[in-house]
């Protein structure tokens, strides 16, 4: 472990050259012979009866091959958890992105023109657009076949909150809200389905985040065997959790039309279509009540978090589950009562987005801790130090944190030192003159690695050494841009002592790689790394056995620098020669690796157990300048310290931190769908503003490494923890600068200047 050659090095990305030369093909770049272009006609209203659909003019338009509605679809529903998402709406549209008619034509232009000729007669209905209305017992029902709009409720009970609040010297009760966030991956959704290709009924190519989830959906819709549906994912232009159910829906539509016409069908969304139809991050309404002694010890927390699920269940049950686990933040609280809920509404449906249930709770709970510190007359970091998890602490779920390093103190100290927190806090706490005022604010978090008790957590991989010594890797986890091709190649390269230029990580192909679960929950490095490491170890053992016999060597054999060596450092043979000799001796040099995550447990009634097998810890500190004349907030500096266990590729880890921090800046300050009564008004980047290069702070990305016993080379997670802290850190910094606290996102000009958003009630 001391002499790592591939791992813990900032190796260049294995896919970078193809991407800087324009050779990398993305979903919309693919072309197939005889291909048709698909298009969807969506509802005009967020909630409406569909009284009549007339497709005759569209069918007659030159170049149109097929026009279809819900009744043409073998099985119209799918879903990862609850199968209630419809491929196309039939009797009623229940959110503004619902598709009603799909068609395919010889050209994009013909498809677009024909779509305009579809005539749909609606009866517009009054929908429910507020989850707090939707939860009322007498509310009208959003989803057919249900007796309540509640999608899910996760309770957590620890100790007795009444006793805890009675022990408190100070009790604060605050309400917070967070808003919709669009993933805003730069590549709009794109899929091509080829029917009857090779041995399968359909092959699906395109920007698929989770090949197995999309396979499940397409197979279900077509009523086909999983073995007959093949998903091939290659380059994908960003996802951040966002190319799952909406891509499954698109793939299912294209598949139905491809089989109907027996021709490949390509579907590509415009940006407007993408923003209108795709699922978002859940908006939350959060109520927090916290009690503390005057010395600053937390005695109790009572939390209610209500998430807007929109029109479909999608991933709401699991998203709100992560919220219930992390709702108290990383603090020892003896008495906790938490309830998280999701409710259906006639709003855009909500699902996985980087952070997955933690950005809303983190925003609320870390803003609250800051206010509590202020009320107690303590420094924000001191209150946190008094209560935060340490080695052996028990979480709100009563899980003892003793199987990994609890490093909150370390991440806090490193972030504070980097940004010179103590000095700046003191300076900005004093009266500031002039319109521009500065502030500094921090937030800390703990986060469960991988799926946790949400679902079975397994991943498989294949390492196949070829007879020339080059290596092919297969795994069902998909490159989303995060860099897993490179990271997996590094892990296998390290095990087998082979340089990355001899290793090829194949695209995710569901008919070749073992089902590996989804590329979600910041689990890929941990799960896929472990699976491929196991496979590589198996191959290595086979090669050692072969080498001992073939070359008559004894003792330990060391794999490094593309060769095998004796323990005394004498070279035995090149790796490629050993591979060739082994092959020609009839030795099998490939192996599966199957990794099942460590044991976890969860009691649905009490929220007690071991929800995750390990955790990561992070601290981010924001320094801001607020123009009190305009309300404009500029984030000047950000220190972001994250314990990743072990950085397989430090440059990649820094890239994740920079990207996550900037995404959080966007969420905190500017991103806004212009949502009203079920309609999305900001449907492109001229109105839905995401940070540009000019909006970014100077960021110190600080990698903290406390290897995890179960991680490959000790590695854990980095993707999502980076995005959950910024909202609270920036909010706390603004409060120090202006003396005004805020409870709702985004912190746009109006909120910061006059305390409310003029375009909304809040």
């Amino acid at each position, binding site marked *: 472990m001391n002499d790592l050659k591939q791992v813990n090095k*900032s190796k*260049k*990305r294995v*896919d*970078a*050259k*193809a*991407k*800087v*030369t*324009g*050779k*990398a*093909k*993305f979903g*919309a*770049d693919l072309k197939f012979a005889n291909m048709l272009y698909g298009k969807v006609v969506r509802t005009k209203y967020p909630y409406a009866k569909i009284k009549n659909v007339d497709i005759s003019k569209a069918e007659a338009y030159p170049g149109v091959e097929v026009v279809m509605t819900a009744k043409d679809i073998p099985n119209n529903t799918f879903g990862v958890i609850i199968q209630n998402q419809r491929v196309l709406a039939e009797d009623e549209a229940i959110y503004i992105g619902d598709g009603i008619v799909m068609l395919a034509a010889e050209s994009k232009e013909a498809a677009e023109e024909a779509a305009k000729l579809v005539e749909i007669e609606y009866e517009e209905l009054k929908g429910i657009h507020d989850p707090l209305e939707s939860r009322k017992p007498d509310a009208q029902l959003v989803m057919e076949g249900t007796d309540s709009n509640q999608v899910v409720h996760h309770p957590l009970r620890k100790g007795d909150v009444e006793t805890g609040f009675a022990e408190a010297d100070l009790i604060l009760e605050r309400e917070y809200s967070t808003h919709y966030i669009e*993933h*805003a*991956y*730069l*590549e*709009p959704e794109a899929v091509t389905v080829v029917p009857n290709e090779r041995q399968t009924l359909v092959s699906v190519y395109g920007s698929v985040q989770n090949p197995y989830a999309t396979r499940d959906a397409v197979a279900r819709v077509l009523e086909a065997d999983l073995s007959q549906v093949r998903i091939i994912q290659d*380059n*994908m*232009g*960003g*996802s*951040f959790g966002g190319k799952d159910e909406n891509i499954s829906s698109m793939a299912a539509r294209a598949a139905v039309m491809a089989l109907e016409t027996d021709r490949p069908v390509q579907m590509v969304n*415009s*940006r407007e279509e993408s923003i209108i139809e795709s699922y978002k991050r859940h908006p939350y309404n959060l109520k927090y009540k916290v009690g503390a002694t005057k010395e600053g010890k937390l005695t109790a927390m009572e939390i209610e978090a209500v998430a807007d699920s929109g029109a479909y269940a999608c991933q709401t049950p699991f998203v709100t589950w992560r919220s219930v686990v992390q709702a108290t933040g990383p603090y020892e609280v003896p008495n906790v009562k938490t309830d998280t809920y999701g409710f259906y509404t006639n709003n855009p449906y909500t699902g996985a987005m980087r952070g997955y249930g933690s950005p809303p709770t983190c925003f609320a709970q870390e803003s609250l801790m800051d206010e509590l510190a202020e009320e107690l007359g303590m420094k924000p970091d001191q209150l946190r130090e008094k209560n935060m998890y340490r080695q052996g602490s028990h979480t709100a779920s009563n899980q003892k944190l003793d199987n990994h390093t609890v490093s909150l103190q370390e991440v806090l100290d490193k972030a504070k030192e980097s940004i010179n927190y103590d000095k700046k806090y003191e300076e900005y706490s004093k009266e500031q003159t002039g319109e521009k005022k500065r502030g500094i604010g921090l937030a800390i978090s703990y986060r469960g690695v991988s799926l946790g008790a949400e679902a079975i957590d397994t991943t498989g991989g294949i390492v196949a050494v070829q007879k020339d010594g080059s290596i092919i890797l297969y795994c069902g986890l998909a490159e*989303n*841009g*995060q*860099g897993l091709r490179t990271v997996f190649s590094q892990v296998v390269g390290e095990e087998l002592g082979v340089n990355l230029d001899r290793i090829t990580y194949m695209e995710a192909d569901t008919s070749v790689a073992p089902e590996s679960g989804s590329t979600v929950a910041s689990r890929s490095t941990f799960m896929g790394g472990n699976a491929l490491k196991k496979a590589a170890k198996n191959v290595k053992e086979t090669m050692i056995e072969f080498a001992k016999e073939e070359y008559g060597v004894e003792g330990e054999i060391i794999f490094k620098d593309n060769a095998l060596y004796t323990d005394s450092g004498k070279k035995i043979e090149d790796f490629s020669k050993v591979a060739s000799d082994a092959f020609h001796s009839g030795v099998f040099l490939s192996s599966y690796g199957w990794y099942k995550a460590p044991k976890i447990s969860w009691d649905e009634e009490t929220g007690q157990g071991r929800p995750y097998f390990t955790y990561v810890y992070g601290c981010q500190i924001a320094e801001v300048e607020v123009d009190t004349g305009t309300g404009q907030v500029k984030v000047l500096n950000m220190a972001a310290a994250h314990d990743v266990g072990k950085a397989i590729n430090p*440059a*990649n880890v*820094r*890239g994740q*931190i*920079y*990207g*996550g*921090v*900037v*995404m959080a800046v966007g969420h905190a300050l500017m991103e806004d769908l212009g949502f009203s009564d079920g309609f999305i008004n900001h449907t*492109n*980047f*001229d109105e839905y503003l*995401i*940070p*540009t*290069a*000019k909006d*970014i702070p100077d*960021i110190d*990305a600080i990698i903290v490494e406390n290897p995890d016993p179960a991680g490959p080379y000790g590695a854990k997670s980095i993707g999502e923890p980076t995005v959950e802290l910024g909202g609270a850190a920036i909010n706390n910094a603004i409060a120090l600068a202006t003396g005004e606290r805020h409870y709702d996102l985004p912190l746009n000009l109006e909120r910061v200047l006059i305390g409310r958003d003029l375009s909304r009630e809040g």
Partner: protein
Amino acid sequence: MAKVKVEFKVNNREVQVEVDPTERLLDTLRERLNLTGVKEGCAVGECGACTVLFDGEAINSCLIPTVQAEGKEVLTIEGLGTEDELDPLQQSFIDYQAVQCGFCTPGMILSAKALLNKNSSPTREDIKGAIDGNLCRCTGYEQIIQAVQNAADGEVEA
């Protein structure tokens, strides 16, 4: 609509196309010339994924009708550098991990190229200004800025 004949240079090669007057340069490049390194991200000139150099200036090819390309020189990512010798910017994006999903990368590199063509020693603010019209959701821009800076400073591995 009557087709219009347009002659221009793409990646140093003469091309001749017959297009509708409304056809976007983006579509001509992607669909007719198969230069799919030019990406479509928003179609309203906000994201910069379709950036190409147009007589050396970085422009959004989704906003330019192909007829305007008459007599012009267009450079796409496919025309930058060669297989054996990448442009220093391309190499720098590889060296400094400025690539994640890669969808914004071609446009980002070309906007940076337009900057370096005019200003060989840009400041950090100059670089931010040059790529301000190119959105990236993955990288937070930091490693891109570093890559452009290092390319300008000649700190690129061969």
